[in-house]
């Protein structure tokens, strides 16, 4: 089943104002750079973005924040972004903060047809407000619901024309779960190979979860916190 599209323009066809998008990545690691640049170009507005972080001021989802394209962010940690903080504190931006593990599991649940599950994370905190609490094994848990999106946009290291994806290092992070949870899932990859070239034993995201795949034109792969030791 050939999922390959020509380029980012073709890949993002159908994304409209007011839609809910999931975007893979942790910090600036493993983010769909090419698609984000295209979202800026398309200038779609009033987006709800589900992504662990909100980028930095001048890269990643920060670019969409600069253009005021985002109405609501659903994230676990947004600390690296001054524009984000300004928009949130001024009330321009709605923000739903979710424990990171719950965010990951809620995306997986959305893709796996599990509408809700119990987790201990957040019990007794703001996160639990309005949520059902139940004791299991003597410990309180809260009921969390699945997340899905109109489009999920993920970034992989390698992919094949069937949409099978392989990730590298910690750039995997949220990408596989989000790929599962998109009504339409778009994958941008550093390297696109013909079907059959990836070892079927070692594919992280089976192509069934991916509707469109393209080779990204350019990957900047910016490093957020360059830390080194001396020899």
């Amino acid at each position: 089943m050939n999922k390959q599209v020509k380029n980012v323009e073709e890949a993002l066809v159908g994304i409209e104002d007011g839609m809910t998008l999931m975007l893979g990545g942790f910090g600036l690691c493993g983010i769909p750079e090419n698609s984000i640049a295209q979202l800026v170009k398309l200038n779609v507005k009033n987006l709800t973005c589900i992504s662990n972080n909100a980028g930095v001021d001048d890269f990643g989802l920060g670019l969409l924040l600069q253009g005021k394209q985002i109405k609501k962010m659903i994230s676990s940690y947004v600390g690296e972004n001054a524009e984000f903080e300004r928009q949130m504190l001024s009330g321009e931006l709605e923000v739903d903060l979710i424990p990171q593990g719950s965010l990951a599991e809620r995306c997986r649940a959305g893709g796996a047809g599990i509408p809700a599950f119990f987790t201990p994370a957040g019990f007794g905190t703001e996160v639990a407000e309005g949520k059902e609490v139940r004791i299991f094994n003597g410990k309180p848990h809260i009921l969390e619901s699945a997340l899905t999106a109109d489009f999920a946009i993920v970034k992989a290291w390698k992919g094949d024309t069937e949409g099978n994806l392989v990730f590298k290092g910690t750039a995997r992070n949220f990408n596989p779960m989000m790929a599962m949870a998109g009504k339409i899932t778009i994958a941008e990859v550093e390297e696109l190979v013909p079907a059959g070239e990836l070892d079927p034993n070692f594919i992280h995201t089976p192509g069934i979860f991916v509707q469109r795949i393209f080779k990204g034109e350019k990957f900047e792969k910016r490093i957020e916190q360059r830390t080194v030791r001396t020899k």
Partner: protein
Amino acid sequence: MALDKIGIAKRIAQELRDGWYVNLGIGIPTLVANYIPEGIEVEFQSENGILGMGPFPFEGEEDADLINAGKQTITATKGAVFFDSATSFAMIRGQHVQLTVLGAMEVSQNGDIANWKIPGKMVKGMGGAMDLVASAENIIVAMMHSNKEGESKILKKCSLPLTGVGCVKKVVTELAVLEIKDGKFYLIERAPGVSVEEIKSKTEGDLVVPDFVPEMVF
């Protein structure tokens, strides 16, 4: 004399046991990795998706695809594994990680912890902290005894929005090692040269002090 950050990290490192998987939070906890006792093997998990986190890379060997939960460039040890965020928190939530070390703004005597939000001032988000504190059987908090205004952060009750309730069992500060039991802080050790009186005066929560309080040994 009160410990510095490295001292706190060194004291926490003494709590490590052979064969443990350990998750270290950002800040002082990260330093713990530098002081693993001899003869002990532990493996570090970072919740963004690596087991077997190694030291920072040498200059020029940074890999944008290889970072820790603090978004710092890192390396991987021999036998490391990469995985997705759902698997990572399956490890954490499923209690496969034996020790979690993290920082805090406040800790209360029933084990509550607050470390993610100052209303109206700082809203960075909880990241993985809420999952970690709700799930870990063994949590050590690394923190300073007081804030910059000199107010105790070791409290009867947290004033800031909570990260988790009743989960902290041990706190290591620049002054003391405290255990939390039965709704009270128990003074277990004091930093070398620090008096019990100083610790008492800087602890707002109920503090149980035994007749003899040993000094930390490094």
